[in-house]
């Protein structure tokens, strides 16, 4: 199988790789780059556990090929904390008990992070709509909504 040379900037650092055309972005991140914070929960783009930001937009990295990310910016959960300081969305999830098993959390936080970038004061309905592509089996979403509101308030 022919290899493709790609350069993907992850959390501000350029990474080079030679990959098969069929390699999924999530496997590039997890296995080639050893960034295991991005999780895999389904194979059909329904659960959102693998959500990362591609040029700032939330995408499900289980349905994007690594070669499609060539030359693009990817942000993963590992990129949220800056200079030893938690991002407000991370702190919101911690303070409001927005996570239990933690498996959906990275994707859930990145979707919420992107929401807050485009909408600084989302309503509860807007938050619920925004995270409706990310499934959580533990929290019942109540505290995830509070976590996003916590982050919004912290950034106001």
């Amino acid at each position, binding site marked *: 199988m022919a290899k493709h040379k790609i350069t993907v900037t992850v959390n501000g650092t350029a990474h080079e790789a030679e990959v098969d055309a069929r390699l999924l972005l999530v496997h590039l991140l997890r296995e080639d780059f050893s960034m295991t914070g991005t999780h895999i929960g*389904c194979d059909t783009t329904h*659960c959102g556990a693998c959500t990362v930001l591609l040029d700032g937009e939330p995408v499900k990295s289980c349905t994007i090929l690594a070669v499609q990310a060539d030359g693009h910016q990817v942000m993963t959960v590992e990129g949220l904390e800056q200079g030893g300081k938690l991002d407000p969305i991370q702190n919101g999830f911690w303070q409001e008990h927005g*996570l*239990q098993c933690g*498996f959906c959390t990275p994707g859930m936080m990145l979707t919420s992070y992107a929401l807050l970038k485009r909408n600084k004061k989302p309503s509860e309905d807007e938050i619920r709509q925004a995270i409706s*592509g990310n499934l*959580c*089996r533990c929290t019942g*979403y*109540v505290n995830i909504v509070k976590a996003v509101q916590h982050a919004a308030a912290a950034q106001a």
Partner: protein
Amino acid sequence: MANTPRTSAAISGMGHSMKRKEDPRFIRGQGNYVDDVKLPGMLYLDIVRSPYAHAKIKSIKTDKALKAPGVLAVITGETLKTYNLHWMPTLSSDTQMVLPTDTVMYQSQEVAGVIATSRYAAADGVEAVEVDYEPLPVIVDPFKALAPGAAVLRTDKEGKKDNLAFHWEAGDRAATDKAFAEADVVVKQNIYLPRIHVASMETCGCVADFHPGTGQLNVYMTTQAPHAVRTVLALVAGHVGLTEEKIRVISPDIGGGFGGKVPVYPGYVIAIAASVVIGKPVKWIEDRMENLQADSFARDYHMVTEMAATKDGTMTALRIKTVADHGYTNASANPSKFPAGLFSICTGSYALKHAFTEMDAAYTNKPPGGVAYRCSFRVTEAVHAVERITDVLAAKLKMDPAELRMKNFIQPSQFPYKSVLGWEYDSGDYPRALKLAMDKIGYAALRKEQTEKRAKGELMGIGISSFTEVVGAGPSRDFDILGIKMFDSAEIRIHPTGKAIARFGTKSQGQGHETTYAQIVAEELGIPASDVQVEEGDTDTAPYGLGTYASRSTPTAGAAGAIAARKIKAKARKIAAYLLEVGEDELEWSVDRWQVKGSPDQHKTIQDLAFAAYTNHPPGMEAGLEAVDYYDPPNLTFPFGSYIAVVDIDKGTGQVKVRRFVAVDDCGHIINPLVVEGQIHGGLTMGLAPALFEEIVYDESGQNLTGTLADYLLPTAVESPKWELGKTVTPSPHHPLGAKGVGESPTVGAPPAIANAVVDALWHLGVRHVDIPITPEKVWRLLRQHGVTD
């Protein structure tokens, strides 16, 4: 004592909403789940699965697969047979194929394992394995399976002449029949709880790592019960040299379990066998379709439920006859004396004098069923039956369902209460919980609103569920799994600097044990919870325990933690007496110290005493400050609650919207209110899910029609209501902390509240029952049938 913390926030014992200690790693993406484990030289397993629900395997050709780049080996039933590892026991002492040698019994059954150098290469290998099947007749309907003359499915069982997995009954049949014969009123309802799936966000998987030089096997594995798994592995594979001292099971961070990660699935065993044969680590991670089609199904109960009562609404007897579909094998993770789990809790919160229940469990061509869905051994099924039939009775008597419940509740003065089916309920105050729920939701005003809406042709319903749970197995006299008694354990070690490590026989899958167990130690010893490191899930380091499921962690391991801490406190007292030069009986305990009675200035803190235990302990005393406790609970705990749902139904689409949902729970004394509320939110959502959305559906040929998350609908944030919580606190009299389990109460209690609300909304049209999941299609058809919608 109820939730007024005794300790300061700095110590954070019971009652403090301490922020979780596990979260800093999770919010940084630094959790360590099984698929994150990467070992040098690691290989990958992918599994060939059967497209047929029942078929003879005529041949398995592996030559093309073995030529595929990166493929190293293909393991079949014949490979395993040479080691006598092609069959294994289920947790209910039934048997299950690891890999077949001649017949497949359900669609998606494991047929062969492909071992390769990468995930992708293994998947290519799976595509290249050629299996020739001869399809056989399929039975997916348990009634057909149990009908006389049905083809026998389990021909592997010598002398088996039918498809009955087991028959079970409880109660006095004759006395119950008599009570029914003499009753003023009898109601009867067929209730079906369909097959559903826990669908934890993380699927199942493992990394099996066998070292040929030492004979040591390490297995990193998604398991809720690592110790029990180690023992089962040793029992299954001891004859090939995998004896228990050489097996280490490590359950790292688990991405949700809900009962689905209790059983030992064939994939784990194939990965272990491959690692042993090849001598390298082998990773197996199932994908979501495999997860939804092959593993961890729950329920599938057809319950003919009847209730007898007097004219004035006094319940007199309950009778339930169930046909249970267990699929190809009885793989329930049930305690061995309870083949139907704790279904005999079906008399619920009511002072019923007569009850009889029986069950026929069938084998069919479905994957192994009977595994839990966030439920303590079939309690959900039992509660659904009694809470639905209570509403059917209320409708028949034209009584308000709240009034009927109030009239029949076991009264607070009757506890401890011996139920007619043999349980001793430890404590409860059912009228208080229901009254609080009614007050919180504004029950009377809602009934008024409903009358007004009905007059306008709008569909609105109010549904109640007043459930009693039974959790915390077990007392070991009654509870074991495969003979292993259901105690649980804690080991606490206090370091010289006053910090501690505490290890437990359970395993959190998101429940927050690292925080709540630390708070138990903080409560008992006054060591700040932030100074207590909690560890679970490594069988080499943690004391033996039966694991986390059935809401048993707080009732068993949590209790063990409290008792172990008290043993430490007793030793610390001796050290304090020595240091303070007083008699032990002159000392009293205060939060974090032993002090001289009447002169609290003379004291030694737990930190002082920890240091002394290693540096200045009394002559003749062993050094160190640690304790182990294996806690065998004297009884189960019986958490309870009353839930009220308000639903609106769209007449055009049949869609049910849960407008409000008030949940009043009572789980005794609460360790961490934040964590308990989170558990209740999550449990309610896993109650909403099967009530409105989730069902695993098979066609007549045994094909799973709901094998992806596109078809098996998990609720999102949009469908999930904003849950409104309330609580009462009725401590357990026998638990050392007065606590009860809570994680599953809402999953048990919520579905009948929603179902009752929907039936209530449609009652005036003549609708008396709807089976869950109550999909828009189902409601739309009912509305059409009753002339509401064109």
